[in-house]
């Protein structure tokens, strides 16, 4: 019999504030944290606004002493909250050494790389520490050492489906018997490198982000991190941990079509949702809520809508489907992690977060997107969907924990 995997801790930092509480309150109050970028001069970008984690948010958080960049800082702060929430610091020294980490990022320590590359291009003396802090696994190592978690550590980079992928790989580590406790994390920071590229690609809207709205014209990026403590049910129950939800199953795949264009007819996304449901051993009719990737781009939103309808059939019209990206921005590798947390909160609180800035329905996007206002809705089983540049897709099935009943 396969192991059941549960979520026992959560942590988040987004433009809505530090902590899951700040994230959730912002979401259900319908607030957006998107504002003008202050960390660097955004002049020349398609949009000078983003979901930036402002200095006052950082100053309110328990900052570490080390000189680290924002990417590592976000990862650390999200993990700190999740670790405390799950009570992992109360584990015995021996057990703590076995805690695994699966982290993910699209751009690593991008600001450090920019500095290093600029030194090199201008012929200045280079500083190898900058490059080391750019390396994608630097935050993984940093967090391992900060908390003394020396179990298996894995770092992924599946573009914007990274956060969901990390949760999936953490499920694998637990189901394979390699680990009992794994922190799955996704993070990214706003940087000139990333936004310069995403802007010139035309992914960013020059206006307002409006997922699933007829007038949608692109996304707005954000930064931050989400961390979830995943644990075998047996381990969690043995130590009396509070259990937020069950991670039932996941799937990852590729459209195998184009680096930037969505897949043909949503075929990849259809397969990934079906794959996650199969891994979770859940029927489409059992799904109560979908936290959509919903980027607000012209091509993506109808593709995702079509995929949801193709898999869920008539059930797709009976359940709420929402995107939180107009509230926190598209947090890149952190998106899947933060959205999984929002999904779990929806399960726990019986409230689904709204899709902000939704005003004009699009015939191609004809589901119930929970426009602008949170709604009470009982959720037992939910799907969180992500997709990324390169054509990869991921989906995660989360469920209300039923107290150990099979």
């Amino acid at each position, binding site marked *: 019999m396969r192991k059941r995997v549960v979520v026992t801790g959560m942590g988040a930092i987004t433009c809505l504030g530090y902590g899951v509480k700040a994230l959730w309150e912002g979401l259900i109050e319908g607030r957006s944290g998107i504002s003008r970028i202050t960390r660097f001069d955004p002049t020349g970008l398609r949009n000078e606004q983003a979901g930036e984690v402002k200095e006052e948010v950082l100053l309110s958080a328990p900052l570490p002493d080390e000189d680290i960049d924002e990417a590592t800082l976000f990862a650390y702060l999200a993990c700190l909250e999740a670790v405390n929430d799950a009570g992992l610091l109360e584990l015995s020294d021996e057990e703590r050494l076995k805690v695994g980490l699966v982290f993910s990022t699209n751009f690593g320590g991008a600001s450090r*790389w920019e500095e290093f590359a600029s030194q090199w291009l201008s012929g200045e003396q280079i500083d*190898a520490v900058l490059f080391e802090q750019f390396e994608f696994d630097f935050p993984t190592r940093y967090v391992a050492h900060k908390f003394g978690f020396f179990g298996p550590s894995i770092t992924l980079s599946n573009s914007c489906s990274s956060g969901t992928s990390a949760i999936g790989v953490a499920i694998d580590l637990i189901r394979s018997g390699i680990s009992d406790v794994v922190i799955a994390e996704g993070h990214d920071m706003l940087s000139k490198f990333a936004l310069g*590229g995403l802007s*010139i690609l035309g992914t960013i809207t020059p206006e307002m982000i409006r997922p699933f709205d007829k007038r949608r014209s692109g996304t707005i990026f954000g930064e931050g991190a989400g961390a979830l403590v995943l644990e075998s049910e047996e381990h969690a129950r043995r130590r009396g941990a509070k259990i937020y939800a069950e991670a039932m199953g996941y799937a990852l795949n590729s459209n195998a079509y184009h680096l930037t264009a969505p897949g043909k007819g949503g075929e990849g996304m259809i397969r990934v949702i079906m794959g996650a449901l199969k891994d979770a051993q859940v029927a489409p009719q059992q799904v109560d809520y979908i936290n959509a990737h919903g980027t607000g781009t012209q091509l993506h939103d109808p593709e995702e809508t079509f995929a949801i309808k193709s898999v869920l059939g008539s059930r797709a019209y009976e359940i709420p489907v929402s995107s939180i990206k107009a509230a926190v921005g598209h947090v890149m590798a952190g998106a899947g992690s933060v959205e999984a947390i929002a999904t779990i909160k929806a399960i726990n609180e019986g409230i689904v977060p709204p899709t902000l800035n939704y005003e004009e329905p699009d015939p191609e996007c004809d589901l119930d997107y929970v426009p602008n206002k949170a709604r009470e809705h009982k959720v037992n089983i939910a799907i969180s969907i992500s997709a990324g540049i390169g054509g990869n897709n991921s989906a995660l099935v989360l469920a209300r924990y039923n107290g150990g009943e099979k």
Partner: protein
Amino acid sequence: MHRVAITGVGIVTAIGVGVEEFSHALMACKCGAVELQEEFVKPLRSKTAYRIATPMEQLLPTQKAYIDRCSALTLASCWLALNDARLVVTDEVAPNLGICHGTAYGCQDSMLIFWERIMKRGFRYASSIMFTHAYMNTPISLAAIEFNLKGYHCCYSAGMVSGMQAVVGGTMALQRSLSKRLLAGGSEAFSALPFMANYDGGELSPRDEGIEQMRPFDNSRNGWVMGEGACMLLLETEEAALERDADVHAYISGVGIAMSRSVNVDDMADAIYESMAKSLSAAHIEPSEIGWICASANGSPVIDEAEALAILRLYEGRENVPVSSIKAAVGETIGASGPINICAAIASFKTKSIPPTLFSSEPCMDVRIVTGKPMSWDAAKPVLVNCVDKDGMAISVIIAPP
């Protein structure tokens, strides 16, 4: 859980392209190190690297208007692996054929070109083509597009263990029925920025006044020499391999992962010991049942000593097992190093020879290093393959003969 078979190997290294050429070169004690011609190395002490001489366009299945070297290496090795496995990717096969790929540094050349334009001309003049070719997951995405790999899909980036993480991730996905088949491995291209970062960080040979050369396990070792390369393995569940009557090169029968508490020798040795012990336990075998250890040793003062200590501890009270590192032949290929080591294990099954550790004349400890020339063996026992990162991550994989 499913048993995982290796049914195809695609390898591109400084000593050979394809499993046959690579195996032959390895056993012929060929060394792929060359003197770098780039202007930037002239003032440096480190002036060599292991480079692939074959032009990339000759290795690609189709010609590209632009492709980063890291992506090109990935495509080349995927193509070789699929051909080696005689797998035709039909529409029926594609949804259950995935890819797990690791790289530490990814497409650094494309990143630098993209960034230079932003620095000089501002955001409005950024290049969208360079940006899409600069993602860490660009190589895996291009491979999926090129070969119609629609199944399980995951990119790993964790220094020297990147490719080995991909092999472990791919193995877990197959064992859990998340895919039937997938390509798994890693690639790393030579690029100025990582070279300079590792040079400035004091990693590269010569760290002292000695000669510049990679001498794994040797008392006079003084750092590692950067290499480039790629290795992708076609992994299949045993059932999927049988279904199409595929030839099996080897089986992955156990994996172990551990992380060191620090980068000092004793802690690193503990982690390497733990990863080896876990892999043996997962494979349900004893250390004495291993034929040889394909080591991660790369001439680094710390990694080599730690790995030697860990091996000595594992074999305490037992007959010493032959140990060899192929790094002095192919270079430290960073994210590709683990999968390339797996390919060396497969080469040892095919040739019934254990490749020697080049340039190691005075082993640093009482480890039974294979030196000088290949050592004959019966190829009947599994090989324990190590992959260790300079920052303390250790992965061991047991590769069993078919």
